């Protein structure tokens, strides 16, 4: 008769199968997977198109090219010409068509190849989409999503590198989301598609290829994040760093370096620019008494200007032990040459420098 396997050995074997079976190598969270921002957006759109027949996507190269940045990969094959529509290179025309379709009951996703091109169509985003519900005294709501990559990419120079966070978050009647992680991208975009009001979704091209660990919940078909709610990416007690989109990574880099010298920064990922979750920022500053806003867009009248203004206009003023400061892109059009480009945008070390100055640390 064979010797019985010890119970503890059995348990070990069982666990080994569980870890190995799921994802190959053991991790600290065996149920998680890796998801790129691109795939997060892609699956979000796919799931919502499956869920609601009124949802369709239009834009340049979204169908047969699989998307200029491959965000809509596979969708045309799955849904066909009716619901995945390649447009001519006529932003004003197709943004207007998408908005009209939304007014008449459909749920369009209008892709701008980059948000720079939205300037050709901005009248429709603002005057046709954002304002119509109010002007009609609540009769015609416009359930449209405008989305695309926002801000600087790499080496694309001045006309292709602008951040539109400030411009669009300025306008009442719009919701403006700015995902950072894969989880953000999927949850917020799905929420935007389901939302009955016009939503501007500012993505980031450099982040598209970045993979993040996500839980099973994120992978599910009903994973939705609340628009208008910020997330604390990293808890800390010495200073609050607020950012959105790629600047969140800049803050996390800074926080990592600051940690080595004993400064614990709290990093807030805004996730949404309008409505801005200022309550979360306030609660954080009550704890840390210091605020730095970090963005990649230009300084004058930027998103940071709004955050800092709100902080000093109200009770926040009395919680601050130092002036609230903005870290932004330099006040210049984006140059092409590599070294110049590197110095046009803030990096982790620039945030570290500012934090040290505010905290009076050498």
């Amino acid at each position: 008769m064979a010797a019985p396997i010890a119970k503890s050995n059995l348990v070990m074997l069982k666990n080994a199968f569980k870890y190995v079976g799921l994802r190959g190598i053991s991790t600290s969270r065996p149920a998680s997977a890796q998801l790129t921002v691109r795939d997060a957006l892609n699956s979000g759109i796919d799931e919502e198109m499956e869920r609601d027949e009124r949802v369709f996507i239009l834009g340049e190269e979204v169908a047969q090219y699989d998307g200029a940045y491959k965000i809509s990969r596979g969708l045309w094959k799955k849904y066909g010409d009716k619901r995945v529509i390649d447009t001519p290179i006529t932003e004003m025309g197709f943004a207007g068509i998408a908005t009209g379709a939304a007014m008449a009951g459909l749920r369009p996703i209008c892709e701008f190849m980059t948000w720079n091109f939205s300037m050709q169509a901005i009248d429709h985003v603002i005057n046709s989409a954002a304002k119509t519900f109010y002007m009609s005294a609540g009769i015609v709501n416009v359930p449209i999503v405008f989305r695309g990559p926002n801000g600087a990419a790499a080496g694309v120079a001045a006309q292709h590198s602008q951040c539109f966070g400030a411009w669009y978050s300025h306008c009442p009647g719009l919701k403006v989301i700015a995902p950072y992680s894969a989880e953000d991208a999927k949850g917020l975009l799905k929420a935007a598609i389901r939302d009955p009001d016009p939503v501007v979704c500012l993505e980031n091209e450099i982040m598209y290829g970045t993979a993040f660990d996500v839980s099973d919940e994120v992978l599910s078909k009903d994973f939705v994040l609340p628009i208008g709610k910020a997330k604390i990416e990293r808890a800390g007690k010495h200073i609050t760093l607020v950012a959105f989109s790629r600047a969140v990574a800049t803050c996390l880099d800074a926080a990592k370096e600051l940690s080595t010298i004993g400064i614990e920064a709290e990093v807030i990922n805004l996730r949404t620019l309008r409505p801005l979750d200022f309550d979360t920022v306030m609660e954080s500053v009550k704890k840390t008494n210091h605020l730095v806003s970090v963005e990649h867009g230009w300084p004058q009248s930027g998103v940071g200007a709004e955050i800092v203004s709100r902080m000093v206009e109200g009770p926040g003023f009395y919680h601050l032990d130092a002036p609230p400061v903005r870290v932004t892109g330099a006040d210049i059009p984006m140059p092409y040459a590599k070294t110049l480009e590197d110095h046009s945008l803030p990096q982790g070390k620039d945030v570290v420098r500012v934090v040290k100055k505010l905290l009076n640390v050498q």
Partner: protein
Amino acid sequence: MFSVTLRCLGRQVHQQNKSLAPLFTYSKNGLNTEATFDTKPFKLHKLEEGPATTVTLSRQDALKYYKDMQMIRRMETAAGNLYKEKIIRGFCHLYSGQEACCVGMRASMRSYDAVITAYRAHGWTYVMGVDAVGVLAELTGRSSGCARGKGGSMHMYVKNFYGGNGIVGAQQPLGAGIALALKYQGTDGVCLTLYGDGAANQGQLYEAMNMAQLWKLPVIFICENNGYGMGTSVDRASASTAYYTRGDYVPGIWVDGMDVLAVREATRFAIDHCATGKGPMVMEVVTYRYSGHSMSDPGTSYRSRDEIQEVRQTRDPITGFRERMLSSDLATADELKDIDQNVRQVIDDAVKRAKSDKEIGLDELTADIMSNPIDTRVRGVTAFDTLTHKRLGPAVNSP
């Protein structure tokens, strides 16, 4: 020279009368129940056949068109007066002279067809179902206005009518989008997308036409050509004033916009074309506006008073139609007088309401910014003013 002018005018009027005389009539009780007329010929672009030029008009329809056109004329006159009394503010673009366009087009529309136009929208708002109070009180900014006074002259909406758009040309691709939705939803509905001769040069029109043709969208692009884009005559604004051909690869029809029956017939033809999946169509309806571009414009610095008078006397859509009705015994002069009086009464009452009804309360300052508001706090004019968002309207595209 004066007598020569008079003789010329007389000849024109006589010729006009000729076309007013009915071809065939059918009698009952001394009044005809129906009559047949010839319209001016249509001009066609990329079309083998066009709308019929011989049209039949029933007495019932005749009375309705007459009444509707008179209502719009009176309503616009009332609006002009209210503006001069400074009770209407801002912009006010009157439709007087163009009545045959919206009434004729509406006559051929089915209940599920859609319309979108620019800011000269009061006549359209009326034919799409908003009564005189709804229009005039919106102009005076009162709660009984069709947008509760929040939109004003250029932003009136009702089922299947998407305004009322303030930005010249914006309605062109919006209308193509509405047509896309109608097609997507499996209906044979059509979207009538109106614009003026000024807006006919907008780039977005050609962007919209391109996509409409590519995707066979059921949209009729209709140019209400009244000869002037604000103060700039068509000859000074457009290298080509043949607006019905400007769609290039999109077939087009030129229509006498002062003849409600021609407009009705052309619209019937165009709707049929679009509703049977043949793609978009362009219609140019040649019309005239008696007033200036808006109430801020006397309308005489860029055109002569003689010109305006001439149109009033020889081509007025209501006068012309009235004469048709009378000469074909579709109605008696007394009947029409009764209609006139009734219209006058309705408009007078509506003006009273427009003057005396209340504005909405200040709590509605922050009503219906979003149909699904997330944060209901809305910042007021200072950091210390926090208002509350309110939801009142039906939000027809939810959830």
